[in-house]
């Protein structure tokens, strides 16, 4: 962490929450240093949103200690509220008002004062590229514009700790980039950001530290580089000419996965030249022709899939990350 001696912006120990019989958070611990981006990563239903809702005083925890901005969550919820800004997963704008009125509303509720509130509203409209639409009702805004306004509203009053719950869900690639830039500039100004996402590329791009949440427990925590080390060596992907060759190779190599349509096999390991050579030699001796070979250095996809071993996760997460990586 960057500032190990300054107090943490968020400190969570033994946080638990159940809804009826269903345990959503089963005792999680983490710390977020001031002025850093912390990303909570996890598949749908892992408990990410519940965590944000607890930390932002929306719902009470069942057990555990939480400090946000140096204030105890259960003891001084109003002090916590004064220190934070929240942009939830669902649009939290007043659709009957204009963009400008929404921002002035926030300024009034933050007790900033009329003139200063208006000035801040104008600044934010400019910064978020909404100046042209300032006097239009929000109901007429596009999804991306509503998202930007949503975040702009969170920034009125300059909160020092900001929660972003899947801030780029449903945004087009360009809007997602814009959002990333905004997050970057906020952190540069010393704001602490708590971000949930299921886009691995997003965590990789933005987060200083990442925690992987699965079934209500944190299964891993660290920097992106540290997490990638958890999946040693990435993997090798082999391409074959036809199904018979593929089948013979599969029998011989014990692949981690096999794609009969693409005629590829995926094997663990990768960077290690010696093991690679011996594998290729083996295939040679068996008379199996390899058409192509790709080396994959580990990325967060691998970490995610290795740590949150659900059969339903890959289909859901893969395409989005690949799309993000492709740009």
């Amino acid at each position, binding site marked *: 962490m960057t500032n190990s001696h300054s107090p943490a912006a968020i400190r969570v120990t033994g946080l638990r929450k159940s809804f009826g019989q269903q345990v959503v958070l089963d005792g999680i611990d983490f710390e977020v240093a001031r002025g850093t981006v912390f990303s909570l990563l996890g598949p749908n239903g892992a408990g990410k949103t519940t965590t944000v809702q607890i930390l932002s005083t929306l719902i009470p925890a069942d057990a555990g200690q939480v400090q946000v901005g140096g204030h105890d969550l259960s003891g001084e919820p109003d002090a916590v509220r004064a220190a934070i800004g929240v942009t939830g997963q669902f649009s*939290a704008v*007043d659709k009957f008002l204009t963009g400008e009125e929404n921002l002035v509303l926030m300024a009034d509720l933050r007790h900033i004062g009329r003139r200063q509130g208006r000035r801040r509203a104008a600044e934010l409209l400019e910064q978020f590229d909404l100046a042209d639409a300032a006097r239009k009702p929000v109901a007429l805004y596009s999804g991306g514009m509503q998202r930007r306004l949503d975040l702009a509203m969170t920034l009125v009053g300059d909160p020092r700790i900001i929660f972003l719950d899947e801030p780029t869900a449903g945004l087009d690639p360009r809007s997602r980039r814009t959002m990333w830039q905004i997050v970057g500039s906020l952190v540069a100004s010393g704001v602490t950001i708590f971000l949930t996402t299921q886009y691995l590329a997003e965590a990789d791009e933005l987060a200083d530290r990442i925690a992987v949440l699965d079934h209500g427990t944190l299964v891993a925590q660290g920097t992106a580089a540290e997490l990638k080390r958890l999946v040693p060596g990435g993997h090798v992907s082999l391409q074959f000419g036809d199904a018979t060759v593929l089948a013979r190779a599969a029998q011989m190599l014990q692949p981690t996965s096999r794609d009969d349509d693409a005629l590829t096999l995926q094997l663990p390991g990768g960077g290690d030249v010696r093991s690679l050579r011996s594998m290729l030699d083996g295939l040679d001796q068996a008379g199996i022709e390899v058409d192509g070979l790709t080396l994959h250095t580990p990325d967060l996809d691998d970490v995610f899939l290795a740590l949150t071993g659900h059969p339903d996760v890959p289909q859901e997460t893969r395409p989005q990350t690949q799309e993000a990586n492709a740009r």
Partner: protein
Amino acid sequence: MNAIAYTVSDSATMLRRQLRHMLRYPSLTVIVVGMPIVFLLLFVYVLGGTMGSGLGPSGAAGASGAAGGRSAYLEYVVPGMLVMTIAAVVQGTAISVAMDMTGGIVARFRTMSISRASVLTGHVLGSMVQAALAIALVLGVAVLIGFRPTAGPVEWLGVIGLLALASFALIWLCVALGMVTDSVETASNIPMPLILLPFVGSGVVPTDSMPGPLRLFAEYQPFTPIIETLRGLLTGTSFGNDGILAVAWCALVAVASYVWAMRLYERHSVH
């Protein structure tokens, strides 16, 4: 600023928000104000002639003539219509509260350091403004078609005070009802009985013309003393201890609804 100053300033901010909503999307206001006016005209011009003859001498003491018919009925029905106006306005309250609660903006308010009551207070004050406008309009139409109240300044103060108190109580009730439902559709139906209650009271006909059990209900339900008191103040009929009963009912409904609404707001889970 201290806590009370914050509460006042936040409530004022929320009221401004409600008034903006009303100005920008006046259709809801037009409907809730229009309905009682239509009812008033229907009752007076369609039913009024017959109903007025059936009122008997006790029905309209201040009527110009015994055979007043329509004009006697107009005099009788206005207090009931005023209460129905309040009932119509609070339908709108329930709808707008439900719309707010199902949207994300209230979740945002909850994460902000603002007075907890102010979101609901904003709705209540907004609806009070709406109710005042609606009542003034209905009274205006009533006067236009011949309603001549005999009330002096003191009686008028009583009329305004009781209407305000009744509005306040029913608005808080509907704030709670708007939160108890999960959908805007349900919220628009739940307060329906409030519109019907004046009928099953002394709103459109005297209760002594009703059969046994219904009459018993009509005499003891809360709207009847409110209507009787308004009628007494406006047209000089006697209303005995109905005035105290009316105020007591309003106070009871207001306090109970306020407590219920605040609890619901604290507990309301986010979406």
